[in-house]
Structure formats: C-alpha cells, structure tokens
C-alpha cells in the first residue's frame, strides 16, 4: 500500500512538472535552476571520482530527459515492485 501511495504521489509530481514546466523541459535545467552550485559541484565530483566518460555517457543523457520523466520512472518502478509483492505493497 505504501509503495502504491508513493507511486501515485510521484505520478502526480510528474504531471505537475509536465504541465507547469512544459513536457520537454529538461531535468538538468530544472536541477540547475533549483541550485546551480550543486549541479556544478555534482558534475565536478562525478568527473573526478568516476571519470568524465561516465558523466558524458550516463549523466548527460539522463539529465537531458524531460523533467517529468524521472518521478514518472520511479513511480513505475514502485508500481512494479508493489505488483510483485501482493498483499505487502
């Protein structure tokens, strides 16, 4: 029940992001707008600790996705987990 509730909240959040920011508004732009320094530090940290290739190959494509897609993706994962655990979701 908890996972399904969280999934519904995340779906609602995804809907709000899509409606208010626009369906094509990138996740990275939203995060940068929320905290530019954290975004810059995060990139530097990943590049130093993991490597520039990881930033370019994994994080840039992910951050280029629409902002609504991240909460929607997590909501889907929660729904799947809940469906696999009947009676405990």
């Amino acid at each position, binding site marked *: 029940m908890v996972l399904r509730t969280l999934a519904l909240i995340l779906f609602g959040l995804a809907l709000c992001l899509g409606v208010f920011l626009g369906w094509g508004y*990138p996740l*990275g*732009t*939203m*995060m*940068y*707008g929320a905290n*530019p*320094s954290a*975004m*810059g*530090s995060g*990139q530097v940290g990943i*590049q130093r600790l993991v490597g*520039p*290739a990881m*930033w*370019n190959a994994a994080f*840039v494509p992910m*951050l*280029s996705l629409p902002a609504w897609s991240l909460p929607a993706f997590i909501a889907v994962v929660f729904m799947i987990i809940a469906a696999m655990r009947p009676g405990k979701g």
Partner: protein
Amino acid sequence: MPAAARADGIARRVGVAAARETKAMPAAAGMQRLKPASPCRTLRPNGVTEMPILIRRGWETPEARVTPESLVFGRRKAFGIGAGLLGVAGAAEAQQAGGGLPPAMRNTRFAPGREISPERDVTGFNNFYEFGTSKSIDARRLPQRPWAVKVDGMVETPREFGIEDLLRTMPVEERVYRLRCVEAWSMVVPWTGFPLAALLAEVKPLSSARYVAFETAALPAVMPGLRQSWYPWPYVEGCTIAEAANDLSFMVVGAYGKLLSPQNGGPIRFHQPWKYGFKAGKSLVRITLTDRRPVSFWERIQPQEYGFWANVNPEVAHPRWSQASERALGTNARIPTQLFNGYGEFVADLYSGLQNERLWA
C-alpha cells in the same frame, strides 16, 4: 638602420630619459654640484650637473644584437640570388593568402623563464567544455573559415572583423606566455596574436565603457557539450577596460608558429596570462564593451569558486585544492606558483584600491 639614425634615436631616448629623470627628482639633481667629468655630463646654468641615463624598455633589443646593416640590405647576396628571396617572400604571401599565419617576430619582453611546453601536450590536454568534459577533446569539426568577430556595445564604430582581415591588418607578433589553469596545472606556449588594445582602437571605445565581455561560439551541430542545455551557454568571460588595455592582454590567432587549432580555441581566442586560464575565452565570436560587469559562465554556475577577477595567487587556495604549486605540462614537474603568475610588474597597479574585491577567485 643607418648608424647615424640609430645614434640619433639613442640620443633622443637619452634626452627623454634625462628630462624625465630631472623632472622626477629635482631635489636629488640639485644635491649634485659637480664639474663635468665626462662629455656625457652637461652643466646647467644653475650649476646642476646632469648624467644622461638610457632606460631601455623591456622590448628594446640591445644594439649589440641588432642584425648588421650590411647583412640586412645584402640579404639577396646572402641567400645566393634575388630570385631565391622573391621565392621565399612569395611563399609567405601565398601562405597568408591561403589562410596561413602571417610572419610574426617574437616579442622578447615577456620571456617566460621556463621551457616551452611540448606542442603535443598543449594541443592534447585542454578544457573546452563545449566539446565535452574530457581533457582530450576533439574539436576538429569546428569550422575555422569563414569566421568573424563582432565588436560592439559602447563603441563609436561597431564592426565585424573577418579573421582574414585581422590576420592582415593587426600588428601580429609572437609572445611566449605562461598559462596557469585554476586546476593547478600550467603550460608555456608561444602564442601568435596581437594586443587586444589594437583591436579595441579600431572601434573607438566610449568613455562610458567600463568592462569588456568575450563570447564564445555556440554551435550545437558541432559542439556536443551544448547538449548540457541547463548550463548558461554561450561561454562568456569578461574583464575591466583597464585590464583589456594592459599590454599583456592578447588576442591569440596562432600557436607554435601555426594557426591556432580548434581545440586550443581557434581561430581566435583571448589570453590574460596573469589570470587563471578559464578567464580566456576560446573561439570568440563577439566582444562587447559595456558599463555593466559581465557575469561569466563559471561565475554563474559556481560563484563561490570562480569569480570575476580570478587573478593567480598561490596563497589563496581554491575551496577544494591548494594553489601554492602547479604541475607543468610536459615535464610533470611540481613548481611553485607565482603571484599574478609572475606578471605582477605589468599588472599589479591595476588593482590598487580594489582590496575589497575578490581579486583571487
């Protein structure tokens, strides 16, 4: 240059130096009441003796190192035949007409005091975020011709300069500068270019202009880094008008005697060697004079780490690492970092009265 003319030039410089000396230190001059001891000394009516002093400027070459007149004007003989010389000159002209770098004399005023870094290291280790975050980016897809730089804002005559026009009309010379990256590595590069002041003189800045902003090209088709659309592209950097007018401020169009490669910021970039390297905008398309301080790319992203001034100072650490020393590209030797990257004698006076500014970040 004929010997008489050279002597006349020296005499004029001596005269100027003496006049400057006398004007600057009248009390000191008045203290010496000596009879002339040599033909160089002159006795003024008030009994004051003057000793002419030749003060050479940093770029002046000692007479002993001047190429003999006979060799200069007899170079056809030295080369063998006149046709050979014409051939060399023709080849140089052809190189320039074909988009090559014009011949440039090295300006010895700014001797770096260190070995020039290997060209391979300089072109293969770099920051150019428009092409990615790796140090070994490939910027060859960036078209170098045609290329134009717009100079606008608070100027009398805004203009757009084609790169070929700049190569043909600007006073191109070679300068060997140290470059200190904020990431604590450094290199020594023989840049070819011209003073920024020469370019700004072409557009006649208004007296109200206080800052200069430099804008890098933003071409998504060839710059994969621009996919990080959340960053405040285009890359913008800036300096004060006084810093721009400093003789060290250099517009770079070449390196190692060749046209500037795209990964080093070709076809034209900026460099102020007393500041950290991120202040030097690459692949410039626009220079704007303004009365408002530009907020630079990195200053927008991480203002606590990268400020407007960003002058090199070994005693002011970056929030995440020390700036006391630097790794020299090529040798990997660890060497102490110098205040203003060692160019303090040229620029320190720019910052008098600015103690309240964050001059070192």
